[in-house]
């Protein structure tokens, strides 16, 4: 029997270990998770000195609940957690956490990937970057993120889910 998903939007940090422990139980065969961290930069561009996360209060929580419900409809999960931080964050800090628990690893692993792919395209958050150069800019959406979320639709609901639950 699946528990209600745990959905949190908060300025405070979270503890991934404690969150994983909450999902454990006698019927749980495995817990998978993804922790997103603020990255200072990659490649040759200017480095990021801070990120500020803005969101749409009310809609954000509803959108995250909807994403969790879709994951629970698609895979046999015993529990599911989504935590997203808001406000100003520094490189190395936690920004997002998603986790899924299931009787079997396949469902937990796939559900986590689904949750983070959908969160990136279907939850109303916006990132502004402060750069080491002193410039501040809004992060542009990435086409690759849209493609990753769209790919889950292309995989269909019935067949894939039925197979994945048996793994």
């Amino acid at each position, binding site marked *: 029997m699946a528990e209600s998903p745990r959905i949190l939007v908060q300025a405070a940090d979270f503890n991934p270990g404690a969150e994983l422990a909450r999902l454990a139980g006698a019927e749980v065969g495995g817990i998978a998770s993804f922790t*997103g961290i603020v990255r200072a930069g990659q490649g040759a561009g200017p480095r990021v000195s801070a990120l500020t*996360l*803005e*969101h*749409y209060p*009310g*809609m954000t929580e*509803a959108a995250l609940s909807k994403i969790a419900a879709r994951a629970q409809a698609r895979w046999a999960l015993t529990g599911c957690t989504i935590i*997203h931080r808001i406000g100003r964050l520094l490189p190395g800090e936690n*920004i*997002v956490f998603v986790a899924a628990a299931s009787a079997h690893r396949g469902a937990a692993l796939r559900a986590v990937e689904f949750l*983070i792919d959908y*969160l*990136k*395209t*279907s*939850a*109303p*958050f*916006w*990132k*502004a970057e402060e750069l080491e150069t002193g410039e501040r800019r*809004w*992060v*542009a*959406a990435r086409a690759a*993120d849209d493609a990753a979320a769209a790919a889950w639709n292309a995989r269909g609901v019935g067949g894939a889910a039925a197979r994945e639950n048996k793994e």
Partner: protein
Amino acid sequence: MKLLYFAWLREKIGQAEETLTPPQHILTVRDLIAWLRTRSPGHAAAFADTRLIRCAIGQEFASLDSPLDSAAELAFFPPVTGG
């Protein structure tokens, strides 16, 4: 109708929200954007390129061709970048 603006739309418009009553011939989100552009240089800059605009009606994602009907809360924002 309560309008909310997020991220760079809010910054360009210079306010996070406003309550407006659009004229009766404004039927869709796209019509509303065209009308909002005429309200100030900030609105015109924010709504210059509709390809960069996303919206939600009553806190549900909607398309630019969605009818306004009797929407009480409508939000405009750029494509989302969470995660």
